[in-house]
């Protein structure tokens, strides 16, 4: 099968998944009607008004009609407004989303990079030195990392890098470990932040790292990198154990295969037996768990953003949930789910690229 046919096939398989996901979010958002109409608070005084608003929101029809309107609103970008009690009350959810998405994407991508850069070599090392000291250390370390509560590790990092900590001042994270929100231009108020110098400039992409480079401010870029790195590291550390474990076991399995013996019988030096023959095959099967890892990574992102006060979707979700802002909660839930679905798609395509047998089926 050609690769593109495989991708098309995989895309078509997404449709039922997305329908299923919308069904779940629809169920959640419509089970508690009162929450749905909280944004009309203050406008409702009589029962007649209540009925009117219920009609406006199409909540009086049969369930499938409600679902239909829900889907319509979902795909036309009419996602409602951020509730009072949040940071920016009254903003359309879509606008809020445009602001919140880049920070989360930045964090998640850097965390993914750290995971891959650490996890794969360590997994290979662990397998090649099976049952020897490097293996034991790697496995124990990875296992300890995944056993840590994400928020706890985050707090420890914050304590370590707080301005009151005895480390050199330029290493600390600004403002008691909290990234200043103005860096992201999300609030008008706030103390001066590293990037504040360029304040008043527009944010072309919303990505901290890209924007600083856009304005050619290397110092700000390095500073931003420092800020992104720590939460990303926390997310990565609490997630990458799975990839080490999987890489290790799949390396071991591959090293026991007959074709490894064939390679050795050709006189292939041991380092290439590992680099070329075993690792490539192990990478193929390890990609299958990347989707799962990404899902747990996003869960870590929600917690980490809250701890580090990172102005992304995770923090938004936390605040919205805390304030019973159901509209924002459902929006973020839906988007997070879509991200995971998309990540699974990418992983499958990667897998079929790495292992030609998959395309055959």
């Amino acid at each position, binding site marked *: 099968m050609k690769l593109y046919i495989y991708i098309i096939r995989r895309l078509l398989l997404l449709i039922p998944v997305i329908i299923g996901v919308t069904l779940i979010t629809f169920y959640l958002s419509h089970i508690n009607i009162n929450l749905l109409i909280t944004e009309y608070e203050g406008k409702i005084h009589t029962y007649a008004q209540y009925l009117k608003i219920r009609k406006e929101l199409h909540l009086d029809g049969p369930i499938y009609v409600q679902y239909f309107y829900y889907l319509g609103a979902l795909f036309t970008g009419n996602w409602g407004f951020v509730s009072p009690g949040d940071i920016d009350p009254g903003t359309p959810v879509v606008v809020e989303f445009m602001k919140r998405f880049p920070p989360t994407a930045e964090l998640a991508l850097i965390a993914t990079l750290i995971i891959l850069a650490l996890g794969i070599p360590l997994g290979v090392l662990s397998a090649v*030195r099976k049952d*020897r000291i490097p293996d034991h250390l790697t496995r124990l370390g990875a296992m300890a990392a995944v056993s840590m509560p994400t928020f706890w590790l985050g707090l420890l990092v914050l304590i370590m890098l707080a301005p009151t900590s005895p480390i050199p001042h330029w290493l600390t994270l600004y403002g008691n470990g909290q990234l200043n929100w103005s860096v992201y231009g999300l609030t008008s108020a706030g103390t001066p932040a590293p990037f504040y110098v360029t304040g008043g400039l527009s944010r072309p992409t919303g990505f901290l790292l890209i924007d600083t480079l856009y304005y050619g401010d290397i110092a700000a870029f390095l500073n931003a990198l420092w800020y992104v790195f720590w939460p990303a590291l926390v997310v990565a550390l609490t997630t990458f154990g799975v990839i080490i474990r999987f890489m290790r076991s799949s390396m071991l399995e591959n090293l*026991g*295969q*007959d*074709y490894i*013996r*064939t*390679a*050795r*019988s*050709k*006189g*292939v*030096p*041991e*380092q*290439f037996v590992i*680099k*070329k*023959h075993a690792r*490539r*095959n192990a990478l*193929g099967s390890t990609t299958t768990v990347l989707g799962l890892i990404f899902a747990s990574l996003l869960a870590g992102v929600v917690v980490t953003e809250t701890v580090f006060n990172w102005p992304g979707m995770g923090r938004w979700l936390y605040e919205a949930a805390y304030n019973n802002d159901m509209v924002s909660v459902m929006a973020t839930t839906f988007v997070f789910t879509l991200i995971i679905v998309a990540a699974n798609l990418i992983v499958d395509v990667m897998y079929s690229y*790495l*292992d*030609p*047998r998959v395309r*055959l089926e």
Partner: protein
Amino acid sequence: MEEALVVKNLKTQFFIYDGVVKALEDVTFTLNKGEVLGIVGETGCGKSVTAFSIMRLIPDPPGRIISGQIRMGNYDLMRGIDQEAEIILKKRPKIKHHNNVIKKNEHFYNKIRGRYISMIFQEPMAALNPVYTVEDQIIESIYLHSMTKILKVIKSASEHLPDLKSFRESGEIGAEFNDEVGTELSKIKNLKKGKDSVEKHLDMLIDEATKFSEKKEKYEELLKHSIEIDDLEEKLLGEVGEQERDSIISVLTKEAKKTKLNRLTKKLKKKNPDPIVSEARREALALLESVNIPNAFQILKNYPHELSGGMLQRVVIAIALSNDPQILIADEPTTALDVTIQAQILELLRDLKKNRGTSIILITHDLGVIAEMADRVVVMYAGNVVETAPSLELYHNPKHPYTIGLLQSIPRVDDPTKKLNIIRGTVPNLITPPAGCRFNPRCQFAFDRCLVEVPPTIETSEGHTVACHLFTGKEVR
């Protein structure tokens, strides 16, 4: 007759939880030049362990060659094995795999494997890496051992460029040259695969030669370097002092790193490959054609899962032949295949022996295959060689009770009236093998001496040796 390989007192053991599996105990045999030596026996008798020990492919842990000698011509292949064994016995069960001595031996052996001794395996489906194309896996082997040859062919092709072009026009190979490209051309001619194939080869040669001329100096330099390395390897295999050996190995280690085999895959995907890749690919093509693969040029690009078992076994054989080895070890090459495909593969092996003069060790449990293929036969039982004889002699005058029992327990398609004779019991557990002769619990002739004394190997007639107390004669060892 000249000896290609001498195996003496080979002893291999596996160290597992339940104890030490004495898989090979004192295995001795010789392989003569240009003959097919059959090794036959049942599961667990140590046939494959013997092959893997010769190739030093015993999975470690848990397995280890404990002692023994293997000589290939003048080369001592077991150099350093005593040193290794010493370390192992001391540190068991926690041997350091990356111990320097072991590592050095590994480097030394990588020069032997695939170059002088090659191996083909039982399961062709599993023997090839599923994520690399067929050509990738053949070229890998050529790259490792035949770099000098590749460069020489390209160089001489560039010298004969006008001739090659005129051959290309006529579509036929005419005059013969006395250098590398001449040999290659006569090889192509001998393949007799038709005009298309000849043109394909010539196209590739012309392409390489042109590119060579463009960057002549660079490739001349490479060739010089490659010859130097070859000389070093040659030296390493011969008798060298400890210190010199270490220095050669360290040079070769660096050299091995430079091959960058993991980049080969990318190079092969390029539209316009460099002449080295192109020549290697041409040789891979010639190899596939020589093992009678139809549409060889397309097959080069295929992945293993796209080919049938018979085809894959041919590819595996092509890989094994890629550096024209002196010895080929075939470990149950047809067991996983259907009878009609088995017939094809056996015919191919027969041609190979005839045309290339390769010495073959054929390992199988099928006495029928042995009868068709082998010149001499080694019968193994429970890690021991129990009988060695020329094929005809063995089938018509078997001596050892095990051989006799084995021959009588095969249903004969040519003689259905023959009654099947049963050897009672099963192959013993090799952790606690029976004392004395290991066959004694199953032997119908066993007497008290068999239970305590390991039988010596006795030569009963010219070239026929047997390890059994029932016979008397000249003790060979």
